[in-house]
């Protein structure tokens, strides 16, 4: 019998009463080779007869699924970023360097996309952002927070009111080399002012957009404040006005994490959610009564309820397939082996090697997510190699299973109950008719 631990490293199958359990199985999703083809989504749906999630154009780059729902057990996230990795192995630095471009549209399009509300046929499904502005931050650090730290996004940041601008010669990458290049900088004094650039073949912010119409039908120069005719006015004040140069397109196939300590499973009152002998977490559709507790129990926002049938659904890690020695449908279909299925221990070793390789190639942002058995959920059965912060992909940066504190919670509840009882006794004390 296992330790029935609620937290920390653990063999979950053993803990769940499988005395003779096979090795724990899981996914390692290596986003550095994901091509965003969505074969995983389709293969999963085909095998598991998952309904469609609606036909909504979301404007989230090429992501029209929106997220994991009861009707999408794999979800490919697409993130367009006007920046480059530190290493050249995973993206194309300077993709637009030297072209007559203005600033990035990513913050503005993100804001628009964040407001789209798909009808996924599930509940809660994919709610629109309550704070669309926050969506702009997906773009990366240039668009958020305080003035860029020196050397990071560089350029000649003009300080506190409207953020910096940077321009450089033809091949400068972003603004990074601007200070040393021939490009001059104006100081953006106000939000509607851009900056001027001299030299190189790049285009400055202020003149950039309007001037690009040269030779075509002339349209007046539009200041960055009204950029795109889109709700740029909504945007955080500190939008990088530098002409875009670097670009990368992150893609990542998200899935249920099959946590070692699974919030959904722990809180399920019917036992519909259960731990399999492979250490995976599965909802039993013949048991689930749709109480919805699991939905709030999941620190990753994975599990969801179908509106038409009232039950909760999520990735089963193809329990029926792996029971027969097959690999899950998504991993089998994945053309580039971005999704790898196997024994978790082996996958963790493989992932460590892959991380080492990438880092030796200079991809400093590469990091593993969910592979650490000492994290808040005891490690994920499905873990990832990411190229940016987890939250950029819609993953919580440091999740913990709510049940971690359930003993303390019961204790507090017990204390409160005692207080309540005592109060009642006191209230009635000394009164007897």
């Amino acid at each position, binding site marked *: *019998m296992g330790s029935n631990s609620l937290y920390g490293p653990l063999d979950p199958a053993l803990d769940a*009463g*499988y005395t003779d359990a096979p090795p724990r199985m899981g996914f390692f999703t290596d986003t550095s080779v994901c091509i965003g083809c969505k074969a995983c989504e*389709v293969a999963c749906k*085909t095998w598991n007869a998952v309904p469609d999630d609606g036909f909504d154009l979301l404007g989230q780059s090429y992501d029209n699924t929106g997220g994991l729902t009861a009707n999408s057990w794999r979800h490919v996230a697409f993130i367009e970023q006007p920046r480059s990795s530190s290493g050249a192995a995973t993206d194309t630095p300077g993709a637009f360097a030297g072209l007559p471009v203005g600033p990035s549209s990513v913050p503005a399009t993100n804001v628009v996309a964040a407001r789209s509300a798909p009808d996924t046929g599930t509940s809660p499904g994919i709610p629109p952002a309550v704070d669309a502005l926050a969506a702009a931050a997906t773009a990366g650090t240039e668009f958020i927070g305080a003035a860029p730290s020196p050397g990071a996004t560089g350029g000649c940041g003009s300080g506190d009111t409207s953020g910096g601008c940077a321009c450089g010669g033809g091949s400068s990458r972003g603004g990074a080399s601007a200070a040393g290049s021939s490009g001059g900088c104006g100081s953006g004094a106000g939000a509607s002012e851009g900056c001027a650039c001299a030299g190189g073949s790049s285009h400055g912010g202020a003149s950039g957009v309007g001037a690009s119409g040269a030779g075509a039908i002339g349209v007046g120069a539009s200041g960055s404040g009204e950029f795109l005719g889109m709700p740029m006015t909504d945007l955080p004040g500190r939008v990088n006005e530098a002409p875009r140069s670097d670009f990368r397109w992150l893609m990542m196939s998200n899935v249920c994490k099959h946590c070692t300590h699974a919030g959904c*499973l722990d809180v399920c009152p019917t*036992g519909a959610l259960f731990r399999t002998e492979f250490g995976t977490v599965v909802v039993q559709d*013949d048991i689930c009564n749709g109480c919805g507790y699991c939905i709030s129990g999941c620190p990753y926002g994975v599990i969801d309820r179908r509106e038409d049938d009232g039950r909760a659904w999520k990735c089963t890690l193809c329990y029926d*397939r792996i029971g027969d020695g*097959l690999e899950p449908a998504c991993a089998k279909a994945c053309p580039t082996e971005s999704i790898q299925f196997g024994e978790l221990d082996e996958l963790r070793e493989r992932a460590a090697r892959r991380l080492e390789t990438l880092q030796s190639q200079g991809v400093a942002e590469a990091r593993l997510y969910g592979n650490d058995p000492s994290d808040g959920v005891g490690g994920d059965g499905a873990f990832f190699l990411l190229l940016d912060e987890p939250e950029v992909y819609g993953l919580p940066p440091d999740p913990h299973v709510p049940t971690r504190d359930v003993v303390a919670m019961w204790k507090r509840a017990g204390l409160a109950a005692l207080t309540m009882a005592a109060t009642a006794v006191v209230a009635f004390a000394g009164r007897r008719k």
Partner: protein
Amino acid sequence: MGVKTWIEGWPVYRQLTGADPLGRGAAAQSPKSKALTARTETADRVAKSVCPYCAVGCGQRIFVKDEKVVQIEGDPDSPISRGRLCPKGSASLSLVTSDRRQQKVLYRRPYGKDWEELDLDTAMEMIADRVLAARDATWQDSDDDGRPLNRTLGISSLGGATLDNEENYLIKKLFTAIGAIQIENQARI
């Protein structure tokens, strides 16, 4: 079902007596879950096939149960695709089994406003009639200088890139024999 079986089937009982006191694993498993098996394993037969979408030529395995296709997935043996499929290839099962597929011959008569159903054999006879009539109406034996033409320009055909070689062969053979030369396919597009 005896009371004993019934009691033993109650997960709470299994929690109390088994190795899963918290009821999160073995104790909570339903009989249905326990009996799950992949439908590919129970298929009557497997056909080795090739994906019908692009020209990469990924291998597919088509699983058949009770004369119905129950699953299509990549063929791991294929040196081209190694068992993998793209989203389109992965959607092949619904391509084949979709209830949106047309299964009846439909006919729109001249100036008609809607489809009508038509018997397959009748349709074949009608098409043969029309081919022969069009051919006769537009037949060219020779040009003005007496050079043979042996053809009709009254019939056209477009398609073939999604078809089998054997099919293209018969199409070209038949049309050539009846003198129809305006045979084209996606390779021109």
